[in-house]
């Protein structure tokens, strides 16, 4: 029996191939977005783990130093006088290699091969895996080892000379040998490394006499505690010992908000998809009411009916999910590039070249796809099983039932909205919770849809009647008279469109805020800095002789300069921005909290700092609070004198005067400077001149304020590219969904249209009727998406963005975003009407009537 029933259900699907295809597409796209983002995220975090592991190895602790690093003597002192073992000195930095024309970022890892064994086993002694004569590894300057795979990818061989770029300087190195990892994991780690001796790394990075850090393995017991104490007591000021997972955690934390937001957005696409699946399933049930009635009357039980529909959904789910996973893999390749690009722009050097298709990601996608489809199909299947064993239930009765339920639905919708508001209002910093809060808002809104349709149709119906006469009145009338169908379609469409309104408004508001800020912030004429590999996080410094020459140029009226350093506070990273500015630039800093009049007079001499808005948010700081900064003279408390707006980094920064910096740190190189020119000086020719000033193997970035503004906004746009792609995908999912839903709705009414045709309605008139009706629904959905879209935008801007990054943004409603929403909704609806109208017009009324 069940065989026969299944086959009859299958027959139904096969007889409506277009609907089948659209349902599959809806599911597939939803799954594809989730899988695509998940794979891309997984790829990025795997690359991240590898890069962390490749440099951290098995170390449990690390000793780190001030801005310049840790003097070599700390290492030999601990080793010889304090008998600390095992220890491994490390000198590392980011370098770039252009070959042949593509830039590739590497970690230059300088190690002492004699200390490595306990730490990075892939570098340990006794191996036959290195080809080439590497006896000069320690002795000969500029000797490096790269992985066999990297070499073959870049067309390099043993003994080849390679030019690498380090913080604007070009250095020549020689490939002594090639190293091949024993397993895939080692190979992946080695692919991103340029290995050299610590002395070579010091020379290449200009860190002669300094180490980046010392790795240690300290057991977690009483003896380890004692060792820790010995080390702590013998470290110079400004140096500290931290757990290595702390450093990994700090780096991982940087990416967390970014990661969560991406995943949440991909789930949003799936939720939109779910609405559409629900929609499609509902219609497929509605269309077969007569058939179900027939089945029931010949003795098929409710349970069996329920199973038929659920298994139908399951088959659809499985097929759609498989398609979705395949599409997701394709999508992931593009996404991974975008994700990595953004991470490189904003946070750290990460090189991911290949997608690792983890079965886990695919399983998650499959689970979510099948789960979502079955969930969405649950209610329609239950509904199907409740069809009484009669040939057909009168439609009017069903509609009346719904009408009676409308106030209750609306009330429930309001409760959901309140629930959502309640969740969002919780004084929590959790991003996930914020996204959970969005769900009841969306659900509440969709429950309010019927009542909104009812009321707005009263008004729209009048207009449509005025414009299109009888056809117009018929069109609007049938929307309200078939509310049980139209409400679902309109709700689904408006939710899908509102997601795009929300995201679009958020991105635009953000962009505008950053633009305004950039305009007020970049008032100098020329900006000079060494190139760094991470755009927003650059610890490189400039040659001090060159700086002196630039400052002394005749066209320069005045200049500001700064030094950026990153400190480790034990459980977090603190970026210090040490600034030498004249009063003319004070206005560049817009205070959110604090009094500039009081702050600036103390800036140069007092133990006072200002912090950026994200920093204050992350660390719960207010003006007047103290923050402890680990300086080279020990931990020093600074007063927070102001919180200022800054959109450079979501990690936040602590800004102090360069004079203050000099009091606490010995190393005084600068990271960049900005020039104000004398009147009448040609800026562009001066820029060109400055570019010629560094030596042949050095490079500096010399940029006009306009150019800097442009590149900053380019970076911004790049980092929101993924968001835009997701938004576009959500629209496509919505579009396909609405197409299939409306088509189903119209096809269901074939018989009704046939009667109209039999009564003398021409195909053109019928087409007009359908177009007006779908157009009205589209318009309605579009209009309704505006408030919901803005609510979503508001939540994204004021709650989610704030919790993720701590930024204040101006809320900016862009007319084109709203207009786009209306157009998308309308267009989707109108397009959806074309095929059924075409089909109706072609089918002879008699045939349509006879069909049952």
């Amino acid at each position: 029996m069940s065989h026969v029933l299944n086959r009859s259900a299958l027959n139904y699907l096969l007889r409506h191939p277009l609907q089948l295809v659209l349902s599959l597409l809806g599911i597939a796209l939803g799954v594809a977005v989730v899988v695509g983002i998940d794979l891309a995220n997984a790829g990025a975090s795997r690359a991240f783990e590898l890069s962390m592991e490749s440099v951290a190895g098995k170390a449990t602790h690390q000793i780190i130093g001030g801005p310049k690093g840790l003097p070599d003597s700390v290492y030999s002192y601990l080793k010889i006088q304090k008998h600390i073992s095992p220890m491994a000195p490390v000198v590392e930095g980011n370098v770039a290699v252009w070959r042949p024309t593509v830039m590739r970022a590497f970690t230059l890892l300088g190690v002492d091969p004699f200390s490595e064994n306990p730490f990075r086993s892939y570098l340990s002694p006794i191996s036959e895996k290195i080809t080439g004569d590497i006896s000069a590894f320690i002795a000969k300057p500029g000797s490096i080892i790269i992985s066999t795979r990297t070499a073959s990818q870049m067309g390099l061989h043993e003994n080849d000379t390679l030019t690498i770029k380090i913080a604007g300087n070009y250095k020549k190195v020689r490939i002594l040998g090639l190293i091949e990892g024993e397993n895939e994991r080692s190979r992946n780690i080695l692919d991103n490394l340029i290995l050299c001796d610590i002395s070579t790394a010091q020379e290449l990075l200009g860190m002669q006499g300094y180490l980046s850090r010392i790795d240690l393995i300290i057991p977690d017991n009483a003896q380890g505690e004692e060792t820790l104490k010995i080390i702590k007591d013998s470290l110079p000021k400004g140096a500290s010992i931290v757990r290595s997972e702390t450093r990994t955690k700090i780096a991982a934390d940087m990416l967390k908000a970014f990661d969560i937001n991406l995943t949440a957005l991909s789930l949003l696409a799936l939720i939109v998809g779910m609405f559409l699946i629900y929609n499609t399933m509902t219609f497929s049930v509605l269309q077969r009411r007569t058939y179900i009635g027939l089945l029931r009357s010949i003795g098929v039980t409710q349970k069996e009916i329920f199973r038929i529909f659920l298994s139908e959904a399951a088959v659809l789910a499985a097929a759609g999910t498989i398609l979705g996973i395949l599409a997701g893999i394709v999508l992931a390749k593009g996404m991974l590039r975008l994700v990595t690009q953004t991470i490189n722009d904003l946070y750290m050097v990460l090189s991911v070249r290949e997608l690792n298709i983890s079965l886990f990601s695919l399983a998650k996608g499959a689970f979510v796809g099948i789960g979502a489809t079955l969930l969405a199909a649950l209610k329609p299947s239950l509904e199907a099983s409740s069809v009484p064993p009669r040939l057909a239930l009168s439609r009017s009765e069903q509609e009346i039932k719904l009408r009676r339920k409308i106030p209750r639905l609306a009330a429930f919708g309001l409760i959901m909205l309140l629930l959502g508001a309640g969740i969002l209002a919780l004084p929590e910093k959790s991003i996930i919770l914020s996204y959970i809060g969005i769900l009841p808002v969306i659900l509440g809104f969709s429950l309010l849809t019927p009542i909104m349709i009812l009321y707005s149709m009263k008004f729209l119906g009048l207009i449509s009647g005025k414009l299109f006469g009888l056809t117009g009145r018929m069109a609007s009338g049938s929307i309200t008279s078939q509310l049980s169908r139209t409400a679902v379609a309109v709700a689904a469409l408006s939710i899908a469109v509102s997601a795009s309104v929300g995201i679009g408004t958020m991105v635009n508001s953000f962009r505008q805020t950053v633009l305004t800020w950039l305009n007020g912030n970049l008032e100098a004429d020329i900006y000079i800095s060494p190139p760094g590999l991470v755009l927003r996080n650059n610890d490189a410094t400039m040659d001090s002789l060159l700086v002196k020459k630039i400052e002394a140029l005749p066209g320069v009226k005045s200049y500001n300069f700064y030094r950026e350093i990153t400190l480790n506070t034990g459980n977090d990273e603190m970026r210090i921005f040490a600034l030498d500015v004249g009063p003319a630039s004070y206005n560049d800093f817009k205070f959110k909290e604090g009094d500039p009049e009081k702050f600036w007079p103390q800036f140069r001499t007092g133990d006072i700092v200002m912090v950026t808005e994200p920093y204050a948010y992350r660390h719960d700081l207010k003006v007047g609070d103290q923050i402890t900064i680990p300086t080279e003279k020990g931990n020093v408390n600074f007063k927070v004198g102001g919180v200022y707006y800054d959109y450079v980094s979501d990690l936040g920064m602590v800004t102090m005067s360069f004079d203050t910096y000099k009091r606490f740190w010995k190393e005084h190189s600068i990271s960049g400077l900005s020039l104000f020119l004398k009147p009448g000086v040609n800026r562009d020719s001066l820029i060109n001149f400055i570019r010629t000033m560094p030596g042949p193997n050095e490079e500096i970035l010399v940029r006009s304020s306009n150019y800097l503004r442009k590149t900053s906004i380019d970076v911004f746009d790049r980092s929101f590219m993924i968001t835009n792609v997701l938004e576009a995908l959500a629209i496509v999912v919505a579009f396909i969904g609405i197409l299939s839903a409306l088509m189903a709705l119209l096809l269901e009414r074939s018989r009704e249209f046939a009667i109209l045709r039999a009564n003398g309605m021409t195909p053109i008139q019928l087409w007009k009727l359908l177009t007006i009706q779908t157009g009205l629904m589209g318009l309605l959905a579009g209009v309704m998406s505006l408030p919901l879209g803005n609510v979503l935008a508001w939540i994204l801007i004021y709650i989610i963005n704030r919790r993720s990054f701590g930024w204040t943004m101006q809320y900016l409603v862009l007319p084109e975003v709203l207009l786009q929403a209306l157009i998308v909704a309308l267009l989707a609806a109108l397009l959806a009407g074309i095929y059924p109208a075409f089909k109706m017009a072609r089918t002879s009324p008699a045939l349509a009537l006879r069909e049952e």
Partner: protein
Amino acid sequence: MKKALSIILIALIILSAGSYLLLKGRHPAEINTSISVSKAMSGGDTAGYERAIAPRKFTFPEDYGPHPGFKTEWWYFTGNLDAEGGRHFGYQLTIFRTAISPDTSHGTPKGTSPLRSNQVYMGHFTLTDVSDNKFYNFERFSRGAEKLAGAAAVPFHVWLEDWQISEIAGEKSNGIPVIQIKAEQNGISINLTLRSMKPVVLQGDHGFSRKGPEEGNASYYYSLTRLQTDGTVKVNNDNFTIKGLSWMDRERSTSALSRNQAGWDWFSLQLSNSKEIMYYQMRLKTGAPDRFSQGVIVNEDGQTEPVRKEDVKIEVTGKWTSPSGGEYPSGWKLSIPSKNIYLEIIPYIRDQELTVSIRYWEGAVKIKGNWDNRPVNGSGYVELTGYGEVL
């Protein structure tokens, strides 16, 4: 119909089980790749280095210190120590210096990093605890830079991190600085003061010691054959005050072994009649002793008599198979009939093989026998190379 549902259900279960296992089974594969230290230290090229070609004059204190122009040299201390209560220890502390490239290397610019060096130091530290039948051995490497490792003649100081060999300022014995040696690792430590009871012994031809037929396959070689030793030995938590005798070998060369040589057996024997014997036997790959084997007898007053290959008869009386492969001789009868010397040499314990980057056997031995018809006994050290692996 039931089927469809159960299929989905089963599929879901498999999927979740699969993903659970995937998640759980995400053990990182063991990372296993390496840079070889011996490779980093090797470099077969002898061009640019000083060579041991002819006898030369030794001058002290300069010759206590390093000679960076040669490819390798070592400061080799071995000794037999007795604790109160009769517990016997043997120890070895050797610091090897290796130049990775000659100083005048092809006009390459010298680096600017203070960590840059072409000198690599390797250290071997062993302790033989006879009553516990234990042999502890450790190895270390470091570069000759930033005080991590190095050597100096005045004041005499050779060190590899905290393994230190240094002169005690102002103290001399027989014109030779009194030396303190300290080494500690993994709970095993020695802290010894060494006073030379005899003058420097120049080995071979006035300190020029040929190892093979080719010119330059030789070393400059001298020894301090009888160093009165006091100090402490620590084995984990047990401290021992000890007394005994040590031996120091100083050798520098750029190349020593010939292609057809497999290794050597080296004997340093300190006897109760206040005499010492040093004898090394170069072994050919065929197993036969090479003609370049030689030695010396040091008399009570430090006067020496050379020992030629033809003078010596060595009979192996025991064998020991290393758990990591290789069969070593373990027990000898060494006789020099022309001098009426007959000695029986037995290792204090059988396993004294260093399992470090170069495998060799270096162990404390017990000696008894007759010297000119008078019974003698004593202790010494034997070094056996080329058995565990071909050098």
